[in-house]
């Protein structure tokens, strides 16, 4: 009961945020937080719940981004119409690379995913139809409202919010269904899970495919908003790392962990760039990196986990009297 009240309150705050902070920059900042929260929440399914730390998720992000820009460039589709294409391609690629790589454990899986992402970046850099090293751009001027090319960040904000709610809803459902239990069992101890009859390989693959499909949606939304994608921004390893750090910072394996991470890191990055970037001293990333280090050192399981633990500790344990009364 109490929990749902809190959730509704937070949701209400998120909904009114862009109406309270009306400058274009703050509205866009809000939209960016939601966009990265989508990507990080999608990563969370395989990285957080199943414990398979993919560092190559940008492949799926790029899939969605490139699908939208390529279908616009070659067939004139509105970028957002390519969502199913990007998702299908991502799920396909996830199945293709998941089958061999998910057999690897721990760091080896992470390394394999990095290799796949770098490979994809190099291939795309040389494919003329995908814009090669130059990249692809979206509609210059909106042709119809379906091109989703707005000056204001408000429409993006609410679109991203809707998508994020779907992703979180899906994650919540998964968390409480059989697959969620299986994934947690696999994360805790894969061998033990297998011995109890969990088909670990199959469920890890499912998680990987769901996660890939949702990450691709984030990629499409990104490309729709910025109207441009090139190998570095669409398939560069930095995007993978950014997604991963957001989920880890907020709390991997927790429903709202990635959202908390995005709500901290995105403004931190943008605001530190606003304040320090123009000086040209490269201080932005120093500050950004230092904060990540502090969190990794002192709160490795994420800020949300820390907060939840604090709240649990603050709540007094049921006393003997209460227990007796109930009895």
């Amino acid at each position, binding site marked *: 009961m109490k929990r749902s009240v809190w959730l509704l309150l937070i949701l209400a705050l998120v909904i009114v945020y862009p109406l309270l902070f009306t*400058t*274009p*920059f703050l509205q*866009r900042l809000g939209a*960016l937080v939601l966009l990265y929260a989508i990507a990080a929440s999608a990563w969370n399914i395989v990285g957080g719940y199943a414990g398979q730390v993919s560092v190559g998720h940008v492949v799926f992000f790029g899939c969605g981004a490139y699908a939208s820009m390529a279908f616009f460039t070659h067939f004139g589709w509105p970028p957002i119409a390519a969502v199913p294409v990007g998702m299908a391609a991502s799920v396909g690629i996830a199945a293709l690379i998941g089958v061999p790589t998910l057999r690897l454990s721990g760091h080896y899986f992470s390394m394999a995913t990095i290799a796949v992402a770098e490979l994809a970046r190099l291939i795309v*850099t040389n494919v003329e139809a995908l814009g*090669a*090293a*130059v*990249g692809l*751009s979206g509609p*210059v*001027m909106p042709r119809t409202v379906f091109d989703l090319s707005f*000056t204001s960040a408000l429409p993006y904000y609410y679109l991203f919010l809707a998508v994020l709610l779907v992703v979180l809803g899906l994650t919540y459902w998964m968390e409480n269904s059989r697959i969620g239990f299986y994934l947690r069992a696999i994360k805790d101890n894969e061998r033990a899970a297998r011995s109890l009859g969990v088909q670990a390989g199959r469920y890890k693959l499912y998680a990987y495919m769901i996660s890939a499909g949702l990450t691709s949606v984030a990629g499409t939304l*990104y490309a729709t908003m*910025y*109207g*441009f*994608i*090139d190998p*570095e*921004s669409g398939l560069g390893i930095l995007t993978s790392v950014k997604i991963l750090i957001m989920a880890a910072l907020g709390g991997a394996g927790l429903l709202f962990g990635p959202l908390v991470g995005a709500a901290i890191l995105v403004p931190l990055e*943008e605001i530190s*760039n*606003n304040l320090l*970037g*123009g*000086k*040209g*001293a*490269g201080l*932005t*990333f120093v500050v950004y990196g230092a904060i990540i280090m502090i969190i990794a050192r002192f709160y490795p399981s994420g800020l949300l986990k820390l907060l939840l633990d604090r709240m649990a500790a603050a709540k007094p344990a049921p006393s003997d009297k209460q227990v007796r009364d109930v009895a």
Partner: protein
Amino acid sequence: MFKTIGLMKGTALAGAALVLGLGLTGAFAQNTVKIGAVYPLSGNAASAGASAKAAIEVAVDVINNAHPELGDLTLAKDAGLPNLNGAKVEVVFADNQGTPAAGQNQTLRLITEEKVHAVLGSYQSGITLTASAIAEKYGIPFLSPESVAANLTERGFKWFFRTTPIASDIAKIYMEFLKEMKANGTKVDQIAIVNENTEYGTSIAKVIREAAQANGLNIGLEIPYSANTTDVQSQVLQLKDKNPDCIIFVSYTSDAILYMKTMQALGYKPPILIGDNSGFSDAAFLKSVGSIAQGAINRSAWSAGKPGSVTDRLNEMYKKKTGYDLDDSAGRAMQGFFTMVDAINRAGSTDPNKILTALKATDLKPNQLMMGYRGVKFDEKGNNILASALLIQIQGSDYVAVWPKDSATAPLQMPYKGW
């Protein structure tokens, strides 16, 4: 009661201060023209961004203070902008971090938060693309001093302009030069292009090939290679075997250095050696292999010129600030900035529509420029139709301007000497 009065007083005072403040900023705004500059101040192009920033800061000094010694250079003579009652120029720099997303976010911030009257940027073509898209939506003039990608001006934008020479201008100057050489009796029967295989090298090579065909010159050999390579012996042997009359390199820094070293090791010299800007313009190139690349020809729109000249004085101002000479790409940034401020001055206003009209009417003559363009005049797409480059040659420890003759500071030395 007293408390309430105090509060009311306070509010009234604050209100008055606010009104006063607004009035003041209103009046103040008349005296400052704010221009946003989005450059890579971090990331892998940070050094180019830092140079551009320094060059723009020199230009701000030139504009805001009286510099009668700089002759006809735009806005140098008087302090501030004469048509705006001597208004000063203020530049707000933003870091594009080398990503198209940051470039766009920062441009949005400059326009909506900093309320800049015009935007300049953003070095990398991909970032210029996303940054200018935001300026277009807000109806703020955007000028790119250095991005060369062809598609930038094919978007039908109303608010986008660029002053730099583009690939076709670059190919043209090589062809004119080679044709003149041929007319003078130098053998130019076979040209080789050696290009690194990403966007820069591939696109320049393509345009040079097309221009050569159109001019009846023969490209006998094309060697694309990866700029990250650590060995170019086979490529140099291939060149030695074919022995072309002229080689055009389109290379980045480390690979250009490697080619010069390998050519010396294998004892191979082509009669004419051209290095297209980038790697050959890098200060590191001159320092490490300048002595074994004597006579190498490069294109540039910048030349410090004779001592005491306007360009030489600008170079000294820049050198005082940074410790090194002004290079071509920072020079292009400076020229782009002068062009934008000149348009704002002619507009006599910071109203975007008036600036746009003034930009379209831009017609700067060579003597008003600090770069070696034939002028600045925009076509309907926003390209500078008078953009051009000159050829410079390594003679001793520096590049000197050698072609065309009217802008040369030293005679052309032929053939390529090497070491």
